[in-house]
């Protein structure tokens, strides 16, 4: 039986491999190739070398978007994880109705980003219009509006991961800590957090990459207004691609840079938190 599986394994991986090739590897290679080209459609590309990359760096909106996105990613990373962890702690206590609360906090995650963006835009503008202000007139409002939206959307999701993590902490470790007379603070920082590192790795990875890749929410909440001030990287790439004739390649070059950045940060972050994980 095992021999048969070994012999026929290529047959079994073909569907997945084919899907992966068609849906991922080939478009990715094409994307990298196109970033060195000038093109209108993907078949009609002429090689132009590094011109697109030079134009991408010369574009000050791209550099601004980079800074803005980095700031956003850091702020949302901290807020989402701290708040999600606190919620998870609260909802693993023996309280009535924890299941209902878990469900409620998780629900925003089930709504798509575009829809969320428009809903929050209505809410924010409804309030701001009382003071003759609007979300897309002020970059600060745009920034914090997006932070609130993303927190609201993602805290529930991270909370579920943290709850799962908390539930795997063996009770005997906690009991031992209690008997040794550890304070609540010591228990949290010396026992719970080290035991939770695998969950923290996953959650911080998810929230930082989500922060960098944010597109739907950015597009629908502020659309980058005022004057590109709240435009994040993904939206900047999209706008570059479609807003000028002949700039498709530049958008593609930005997308490649964006990919390298997200991969780099993701790997760095995994390394940092992974090294803190302890063996149970």
């Amino acid at each position: 039986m095992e021999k048969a599986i070994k012999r026929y394994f290529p047959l079994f991986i073909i569907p997945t491999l084919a899907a992966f090739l068609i849906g991922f590897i080939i478009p990715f290679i094409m994307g990298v190739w196109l970033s060195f080209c000038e093109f209108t459609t993907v078949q009609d590309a002429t090689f132009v070398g590094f011109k697109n990359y030079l134009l991408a760096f010369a574009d000050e909106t791209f550099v601004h978007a980079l800074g803005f996105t980095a700031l956003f990613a850091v702020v949302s990373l901290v807020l989402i994880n701290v708040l999600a962890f606190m919620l998870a702690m609260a909802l693993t206590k023996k309280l009535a109705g924890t299941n209902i609360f878990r469900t409620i906090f998780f629900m925003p995650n089930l709504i798509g980003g575009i829809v969320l963006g428009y809903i929050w835009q209505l809410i924010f503008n409804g309030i701001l219009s009382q003071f003759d202000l609007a979300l897309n007139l002020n970059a600060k409002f745009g920034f914090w509006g997006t932070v609130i939206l993303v927190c609201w959307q993602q805290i529930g999701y991270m909370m579920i991961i943290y709850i799962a993590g908390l539930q795997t902490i063996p009770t005997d470790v906690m009991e031992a800590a209690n008997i040794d007379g550890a304070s609540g603070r010591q228990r949290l920082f010396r026992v719970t957090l080290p035991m939770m590192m695998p969950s923290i790795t996953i959650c911080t990875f998810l929230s930082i990459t989500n922060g960098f890749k944010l597109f739907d929410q950015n597009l629908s909440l502020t659309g980058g207004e005022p004057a590109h001030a709240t435009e994040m990287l993904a939206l900047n790439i999209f706008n570059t691609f479609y807003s000028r004739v002949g700039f498709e390649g530049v958008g593609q070059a930005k997308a490649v840079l964006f990919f390298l950045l997200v991969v780099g940060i993701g790997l760095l972050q995994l390394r940092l938190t992974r090294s803190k994980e302890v063996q149970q």
Partner: protein
Amino acid sequence: MKMKRLLATGLAAMLMAGALAACGSTPASTGTASTPSTAAPASTGAAVGDGKVYYLNFKPEQDEQWQALAKAYTEETGVEVTVLTAASGQYETTLKSEIAKTEAPTLFQVNGPVGLASWKDYCYDLSSSQLYGELSSDEFALKDGDKVAGIAYVIETYGIIYNKGLLEKAGYTQDDIKNFEDLKKVAEDITARSGELGFSAFTSAGMDGSSDWRFKTHLANLPIYYEYKADGISSTDAIKGSYLDNYKAIWDLYINNSTTKPALLSTKTGDDAVAEFVTEQAVFYQNGTWAYNDIADLGDDNLGMLPIYIGAEGEEKQGLCTGTENYWCVNSKASEEDIQATLDFLYWCVTSEEGTTALCTDMGFVIPFKGNLPATNPLVNISNDYIADGYTPVSWNFTTMPSEQWKNDLGSALTGYAAGTSQWDGVVTAFVDGWAKEYAAVNG
């Protein structure tokens, strides 16, 4: 342990794949496709060859009518016609992905010289086509050198649509408004008495994406038109902005005499403006002939149109803004049979009774072809009256705007100025410096 690490790495790789897929994929083109009956009668099949027509339609408002027309053509000739309509604002993205397919559109459209620059390699030379022979005037052909790359299929007009009843209630008629000074006087008078009258002068000049093109593109056409006219040119690589003070004057008039506080315009949508106009909260509404169906409830006799006066010299004889940004192009990379089938289909559309009725009556178009039928759209008739009375129509020079980016930046600057978060200088910079910068970027 090893297993766990492997699993974690695998999971991370999958997430990374998700990240990549998100940035690599083109946005989904939402649209409606339908392939009318493909069962071609054998008898006619031989005569028409085996070409097919695939039309990527720009106007969602007319999707239904195009589907019906395609079906009628298939029934009559047996040639398969597919019509796909791009979602509003998604035409370029849809076209880019559709034309890369094996079954690419045989018929698509560009919006003028700037759009043509990106698609010229895909435009079949129409100079020897029967369709070109049907054009009522050569000015409706979009040329790339000697090549006829595109042919306009609809002429549209915009201006300031107004509610006759309300204007009379305020004590004025169209005869009182002959230039910018008159318009300003009337608008400011209505604003001063808006409490007592119960309505405002202008509908909200919404700067939401669904409405801002009325100002960053259509209204911006007027300073460009007068500058081109004064300099005797039809396009430029660097605009001087000689009429920007006039642009400021009309924009100030719009934002200070509307239903909405200027600071809140950034959130107002196109639908808001329509609603305000239809519910008689405002007298003036800047838009064009295509908006008729939205406002028809006010009654045909109640609708009038005024030229957009900006205070330029000689504007007493200025008419409405008439032109086109819709040019049919035939895909030169399609097979010869498909090109022929497409040309035949277009010729049929503009010459046959069924085709012209569909275009002129059902879709409400004014078509620049000999077979044009009298309009049923009252706004079109108003625009014809202006021309018959000797007013000079304002041409659509916004097709020469260097890029979408230029329009967007101008829109942001106008929004900021209206809200008071930035100065008019920002608009001047976006208009003048932005033009030169975008022109240089695009034409490198």
